């Protein structure tokens, strides 16, 4: 037998933990697998199809591109009008008395 107090403490602790070894393994409920399958099915049912996600994303991209294109076109035509007005020395607005 060891007389070292640390070893004694260790042995005492091991004795104290010994009842843990008596715990028996038990079987899970036979219905558990059915419940898991149900939860998997629910998850699959609630999942948004990727096709729908991609098509929504694509329509957003198209909408944004049309917007950007229209804005650029508008800018371009404004510049064009200004250039023509300058070339023909036209008054670009309706204010006659400046």
């Amino acid at each position, binding site marked *: 037998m060891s007389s070292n107090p640390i070893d004694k403490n260790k042995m005492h602790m091991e004795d104290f*933990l010994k009842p*843990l070894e*008596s*715990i028996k393994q*038990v079987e*899970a409920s036979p219905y*558990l697998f059915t419940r*898991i399958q149900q939860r998997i099915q629910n998850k699959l049912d609630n999942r948004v199809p990727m096709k729908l996600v991609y098509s929504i994303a694509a329509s957003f991209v198209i909408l944004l591109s049309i917007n950007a294109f229209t804005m650029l076109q508008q800018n371009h035509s404004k510049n064009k009008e200004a250039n023509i007005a300058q070339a023909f020395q036209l008054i670009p607005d309706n204010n006659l008395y400046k």
Partner: protein
Amino acid sequence: MKFEEIYKQFSKLVFNLALQYVQNTEDAEEITQDVFLTVHQSLKLFQQNSEIQTWIYRIAINKSLDFIKAKNRKKRFAFITSLFHDDGNELKNLGHNFNHPGILLEQKEALESLFQHINALPDNQKTALILSKLEQKSQKEVAEIMKLSTKAVESLLQRAKTNLAKKINPSEGK
């Protein structure tokens, strides 16, 4: 490996491991469901770098610890709400209900008190103790499951035992 085969092979292991963490059949069943849901989702992503059993052990440990944290959070929230609304039912339902089917009736009291001390340990010490003492895993296996070195596991177990000794007999730990 098919999901059903995995369930047949490992459901007992997962359920019993969850029981060691929560000591309650209903909670352990809920954890088991969560574990197999994750296994089903991640089966395609599972890389054969580690054994499937080690992988399932890791998922079960994480799910058990997450479940305990969530339950404690709910308890705190229910306590705060009970201060404003006089409805103690929710708080009662969230209380710890010791109901471990693997424990013999004559040892229930002693083990309930021991588990109370084990539950108060930090997560990694608790996991090391459960794996080595309740799951009868070697230090090498515990190290592999916990992704630690054998030395680190040895030190965790030592600290767990010291902390338990302090909790059980406060004069002994000094």
